[in-house]
């Protein structure tokens, strides 16, 4: 799997990731996992959902070289016909978007079954 690297300013502020569907009324929820530079899991960085779509990853200095993985789903609401969704993952520093992407499986329709997605990225402090 090709993991994108996202460059952050070493002297900049906190880095965060926002996971939402900004154009459709969909419930998007999940967990952001942290991995060190050797790709060893270090636990959860936080959870995202409608009430809190943004997860703080840490300062640029402390997470340089770390990997992150957003694992979540568009939660089914029993829509008939199935309704459209498009998940957008945005990596921010000081509330400024550095990278915005729709993950694989992040777009489609949702009916009776949750639609899971996963998106991994690496933070490079440079």
């Amino acid at each position: 799997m090709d993991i994108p690297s996202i460059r952050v300013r070493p002297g900049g502020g906190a880095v965060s990731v926002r996971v939402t569907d900004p154009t459709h009324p969909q419930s998007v929820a999940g967990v952001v996992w942290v991995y060190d530079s050797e790709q060893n899991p270090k636990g959860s960085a936080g959870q995202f959902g409608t009430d809190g779509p943004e997860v703080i990853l840490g300062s640029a200095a402390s997470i340089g070289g770390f990997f992150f993985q957003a694992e979540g789903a568009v939660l089914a609401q029993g829509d008939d016909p199935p309704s459209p969704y498009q998940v957008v993952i945005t990596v921010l520093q000081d509330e400024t978007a550095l990278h915005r992407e729709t993950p694989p499986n992040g777009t489609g329709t949702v009916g009776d079954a949750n639609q899971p997605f996963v998106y991994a990225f690496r933070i490079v402090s440079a």
Partner: protein
Amino acid sequence: MSRRRRGWAAALALLAAVPWGRAGAQAQPGSGAIESLVSQISFGIPSSPAFALLPGQASEVQHVVTPHDFQSAISTWTTDGKLHAGAALDFRPFSTAGSLREYQQHPSRQIAWRTVFSAGTAQAADGSTDVMVAAGLRIPVIDRADPRADPAVVRRLENAYQAALLAQGPPGLNATPEKFVQRADSAAKLIQPVRDSIAAANWNRLKWDLGVGLAARAHSGVFRQDSLTADRGGFWTSLAVPVGSAIQASGTAKLTLAQADSAGAERVRGVVGGRLRVFPRGALALSAEAAQVFARYRDRTDQDESWTHVGVLLEFPSTFLAGFIRSGWIGVGYGGDLSRAGERAPQLSLQYAFYQNRVLKR
């Protein structure tokens, strides 16, 4: 035998023994007759009003997402100006309703998002070259059971899903897609009790639906203004109101107007009815309904008819009866049609049956 079970057994025996006048008491091998008693009249609106106006329904309905997809789909319905029979699609015309937060704050966005457009074609009749084409809208005006409109419901589900992922621990960074599917399936199973609990709490929330549809006949299948004639139109509305947490009261009205081109052809059909559904506690359920149905025919007023349909069904687990070992459901129903034209006496019957899958559900 407990006092309650003795009571149920006695009640059943009494029902079977009562001479119901012209009505017969019949034991049925399955739930079919029982089910038809409470399903002849639909107390909702058609999920796709367009299809309700067509003589046959397409085997597959295309769920269209974007306006571009809609245009592409429609463009495949004709070849050299002639309509194909058997096409069907549905589409949310207002699918970009903003974020979930915006949706929750604006009832107008909720109505727009829930609105579904449907369209379809069907052969007018066996052997005919005419093609019927229909379009319709389903508009759920009020839906207090809409889970995404309630921030508390959304929060409960999302918290449960997050907890289900956390409980599985972090996945490998290079885990296979199959592994992620497995984790997602596991999370979905873990949150199912939350979904069930939400569904049980919201089963009888206030709902008001509207449906409208129009159908035209394309002569020889030609899809051109001068080859199209209006054929029929339909209007449906249904209202469901909670009465406490155990009762739902529903009302429905439906009207279909048809372009009757020959004497004796049906030109109007209408239904007005009401229903009560009661789920007092445990697995006991009761449904009682009454509806007035009428039909009018062109140039044959002597054929015009109007009748009342009534149906009552009591359903309970077979284990309510002492000595009944097989697990399943017992339904006791009474009803039929009153004062239908050409029939001197009400066609009422008492039915009771044992079956595996329950008929009355919240």
